[in-house]
């Protein structure tokens, strides 16, 4: 087991792009070697040693034996855990955009809040956000057919608009409220919203959305199917979006 601890040396103001912070990239590296890995502060390349206090405990041959612990606020550090395949990242604070983008495996736990596009285009692995998540949880990049394709994202707080946009697989659980249009244009996967939301499931062709709280604005394009029980709770089941001949299932209290 290799544990890499990063402590930000300052509260970054200009965002740092650090797609290099992954278990895959750190496996088997010494603190000095990790310190030499480059991230970008705006347009300026910066070795991680300039940005973080770095310590390494133990060693690992592969990513699945690596744990990265980030102690402090990295709410201006983007792309942490991008495309990681295995291992663990524990962020004891907030994190910036695109955390866990294109993630394939492993686990990211964020103790604080996650900014937009957490788990963008992820295909596997697990992301837990203990605070709130901003826009586009598990969504895609502009113009792409699919957002999230696999894996699981759990947000224990609230999430903003467009949760699971273009989702093609996997699962998103928002324990609190979600902003407008969760599951917009989704083609698969499952979204569970513990609290309230608006306009769920527009253009859903396949997939499941369960809303346990209130829906203020229902999309006017769903066929009501009757009452159905999901995990012991009763919901009204709708099927749609009829405009796109969708067979998506929307469960609303």
């Amino acid at each position, binding site marked *: 087991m290799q544990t890499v601890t990063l402590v930000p040396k300052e509260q970054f*103001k*200009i*965002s740092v*792009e650090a797609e290099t912070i992954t278990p895959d990239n750190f496996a088997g590296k010494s603190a000095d070697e990790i310190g030499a890995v480059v991230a*970008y*502060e*705006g*347009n*300026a390349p910066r070795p991680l040693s300039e940005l973080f206090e770095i310590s390494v405990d133990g060693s690992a041959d592969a990513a699945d034996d690596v744990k990265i612990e980030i102690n402090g606020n990295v709410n*201006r550090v983007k792309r942490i855990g991008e495309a990681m395949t295995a291992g663990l990242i524990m962020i004891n604070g907030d994190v910036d*955009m695109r955390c866990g983008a294109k993630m394939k495996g492993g686990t990211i736990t964020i103790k604080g809040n996650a900014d*937009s*596009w957490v788990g963008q285009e992820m295909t596997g692995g697990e992301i837990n956000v203990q605070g709130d998540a901003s*826009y*586009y949880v598990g969504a895609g*990049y*502009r*113009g792409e057919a699919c957002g999230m394709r696999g894996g699981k994202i759990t947000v224990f707080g609230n999430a903003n608009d467009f949760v699971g946009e273009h989702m093609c697989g996997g699962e998103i659980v928002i324990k609190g409220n979600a902003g*407008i*249009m969760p599951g*917009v*244009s989704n083609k698969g996967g499952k979204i569970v919203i513990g609290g309230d939301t608006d*306009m769920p499931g*527009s*253009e859903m062709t396949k997939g499941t959305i369960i809303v346990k709280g209130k829906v203020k*604005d*229902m*999309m*006017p*394009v*769903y*066929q*009501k199917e009757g009452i159905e029980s999901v995990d012991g709770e009763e919901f009204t089941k709708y099927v*749609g*979006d*009829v*405009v796109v001949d969708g067979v998506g299932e929307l469960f609303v209290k």
Partner: protein
Amino acid sequence: MIIKDVLCPFCGCLCDDLAVEVENNKVVDVKHACKIGASKIMGHDRIKAPMMRDDKNGEFREVSYDEAINESAKILANSKRPLLYGWASGVCEMMKKGVLLNEEVGGIIDNTASVCHGPSALGVHEKGLPTGTLGQFANRSDLVVFWGCNPVQAHPRHMSRYSVFNKGFFTAKGRKSRKVVVFDVRKTDTAEMADEYVQVNPGEDYLVISALRAVVADKADVVPDSVGGVPKEKLVELGEAMKGAKYGMVYFGMGLTQSRGKYKNIDNAVSLITELNAHGKHSILPMRGHYNVTGFGQVCAWETGFANAVDMSRGIPYYNPGETCSNDLLMREEIDAAMVIAGDAGAHFPAQSIARMGKVPVIQVDPFHNPTTEMANIVIPTKVSGVELEGTAYRMDAVSLRMRKLVDVDFPSDEEVLDKIIAKIREIKGASS
């Protein structure tokens, strides 16, 4: 001297039939233009000379162009995250230089579309854009819908030249050839002139569009009795009217791009139009604001692959509104310098955004004193494009035309200023590497 076939450098209509009378190198009369276009060409008080100040609350002092340009270059060259905003009130030739400057400084280039029709581009990424040139609509459209736009106020000649009153090959009766419908949250002047006004609850356009799509798809049975404040029977009637049109045309504006759902409204509207094309011919067009805001999108797309909000910090163009637009960056306080050129962030960004611009050095390149000037450290006055400078502009339908020069002035063009800033930045960066 009367100069004919002059293009109007105000709105996206880019009217090209103006006649401008020039005497002793001064514009004395503008014919055929709307009130706004005439006002623009007749001109206003302008900034006389470059100015600088160290403290944004202090007084400006006049400086030479060289000093202002060198100082600007220094700020941009030393910046880790400069924002280059504006661009829409310039010609394409200067926009190309802007894209190059952004490469040189590894910054973000963003144009006024990000507070205007930026969401329309996001809608296009989702669904495309079935459209055409304005003459196509003028000659053919028998059903005209204005959705969340108010051309009487914002594009005063649009209705007479392209969309409503003009006569065309298949629309020989002009206004009588067309049914005009306005969707809006309030009864605008445009709505007053329409055959039908459909009042939509603020922020509920998306729901109304979805309901219309259901009607068009013969699935009205699922539509509830009222959607977005519009009764179901009205929605059915409108949906059927759209299906029955020979050439249906939807023009849309900020009522869709700036209200709840933003680009999803455009996404949904494009789908409606696409689906309607199974019945008759239908097109949709954003009512672009600045006369060449469309041109920036075109130039930026062919130069970088993306139409706007391009982040060059990694040496490769990266685009992601929500992350790389001016207000995203300003609200996160992550820029450390700004250039505002041919656009007025000061007048058109939320106060909180401007307050954040207030904390970093701001370079303004513009002929006129405006709210951005109030926030600027360096001000570099330039020529008024389309009046004092010729060059290319793209009409709202992406037809490019060549703007004419009407009078000569001593001010440098935006392009010349950018050229000099780029040269100076190369000198600074060359010396440090």
